[in-house]
């Protein structure tokens, strides 16, 4: 436990030290203010923007797009995962597709999506789902694979119905794996949607960053970057901690 604490403290010290060095380099003029502004100024600018409400519309747009993409990824991935898991021949057939799918830079399809759906949130949602759906699908299949046979046989011996088997055995066993899928789907949704907004969109946080870059407004740009990176990091850390708890509980049950 003390080692754990030492690790955490060292990590914190390194991060704070890095920020302090960056701050010093910017303040002393070693790094030109044209390319990077001091971290403290980023934070001040961000506070001002949050307070004045000028980024609220972009925040709402990005978050609602992410929420839609995440929900769709979870539902579609879950359904596909269960369906493919039930059909072993199909899952073997999908192997070559899945093996090369992840190597394809999906973003190159984004202009195509824009041409097909128009310049609105639909292409962004599709982009956000492009990696989320397979991630959720694979996690679902993974979770279903790990259910101990013994438990399913016990369910049969107790004459549990299909719904009760799912509710009492399948779900509790698979939940940690499903959660991993949700975590990945969220990260991919954020990455895809903000990248899409960044390249070509009419609104959203990614678009606001690109817009500020084009207008040489580096205070706004760095404040927005700080916001996006900080928010996504905080979300990921929360989910990661939660996942750790679920996994530990699961191991405890075994």
């Amino acid at each position: 436990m003390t080692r754990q604490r030492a690790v955490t403290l060292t990590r914190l010290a390194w991060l704070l030290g890095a920020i302090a060095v960056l701050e010093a380099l910017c303040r002393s003029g070693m790094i030109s203010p044209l390319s990077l502004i001091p971290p403290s100024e980023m934070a001040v600018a961000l506070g001002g923007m949050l307070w004045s409400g000028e980024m609220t519309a972009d925040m709402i747009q990005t978050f609602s797009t992410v929420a839609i993409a995440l929900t769709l990824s979870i539902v579609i991935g879950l359904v596909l995962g269960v369906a493919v898991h039930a059909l072993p021949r199909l899952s073997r057939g999908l192997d070559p597709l899945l093996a090369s799918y992840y190597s394809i830079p999906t973003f190159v399809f984004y202009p195509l999506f824009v041409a097909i759906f128009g310049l609105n949130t639909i292409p962004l949602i599709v982009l956000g789902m492009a990696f989320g759906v397979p991630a959720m699908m694979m996690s679902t299949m993974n979770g279903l694979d790990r259910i101990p046979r013994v438990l399913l046989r016990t369910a049969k011996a107790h004459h549990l119905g299909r719904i009760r088997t799912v509710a009492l055995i399948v779900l509790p066993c698979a939940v940690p794996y499903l959660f991993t899928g949700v975590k990945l789907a969220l990260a991919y949704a954020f990455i895809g949607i903000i990248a899409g907004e960044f390249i070509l969109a009419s609104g959203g946080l990614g678009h606001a960053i690109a817009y500020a870059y084009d207008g040489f407004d580096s205070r706004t740009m760095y404040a927005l970057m700080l916001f996006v990176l900080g928010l996504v990091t905080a979300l990921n850390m929360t989910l990661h901690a939660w996942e750790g708890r679920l996994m530990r509980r699961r191991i405890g049950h075994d």
Partner: protein
Amino acid sequence: MIEAPEHHARRGSALDAMVTVVVLLALWQGVYGYVGDAAIAPPLTAVQHLAAMLATASFWDHIMATLTAFAGALALAAVLGTLLGLVFGIRRFAGDVAEPVLAGLYSVPKVTLYPMILLMFGLGMGAKVAFGLIHGVIPITLFTLSAVKAINPVLLRTARALRLSQFETIRTVLAPAVLPEMVTGLRVGFSLTLLGVLIGEMFASQKGLGFLIVNGLSLHNVKQTTAVILMVVLLAIAANGSLLWLDRRLVHRGE
């Protein structure tokens, strides 16, 4: 004796791959039939247009621009990622300190950092390489790190008992033990590096395949966009396929 089922399995997977390709082509043609000429070119037209573009010198300039940036970024990511992974894997404390930070950076939308990189490196090759590098280096580091951590401690103790020098330990024990995982890390790093380079080209560039895709969209040149996307996908699949093949060979050798 073992040949037969192996051969059979390979034929089965070749058939699966063929069925997958046919289904995807049918899907593509179906989307074309639904949305029409204004949004996407049909498979045959895209292939013909790609062939025509491949015959021009300027298209090769764009391909080379992308490939040069990609190769540079990947080489840097591989060297840096492997070194960092080895250091963090051997020094457990440093590894425990760094791993969550790296994992956090891995799942953050790094696109937002691109303007900063542009401000630092200016428009051009340097920014593309740097952007590809920050995408690719993290997974390579993480995979190498976990491979080193997972090494059977008996192997390292044996190396110590045999009084191998640090260099000899790395060469004869560490490197062979982590090689398969490193190839996997390289595969993930490879696709993310390519992604980084292409996003960089799509956002702000005058050259490269990513530029051609966005350029085709703004000129309403649907054939160009579709053909270049096809080219990128084929490139990615070919490279991934060869790394997978390498992966399988190394893993089999290890067993």
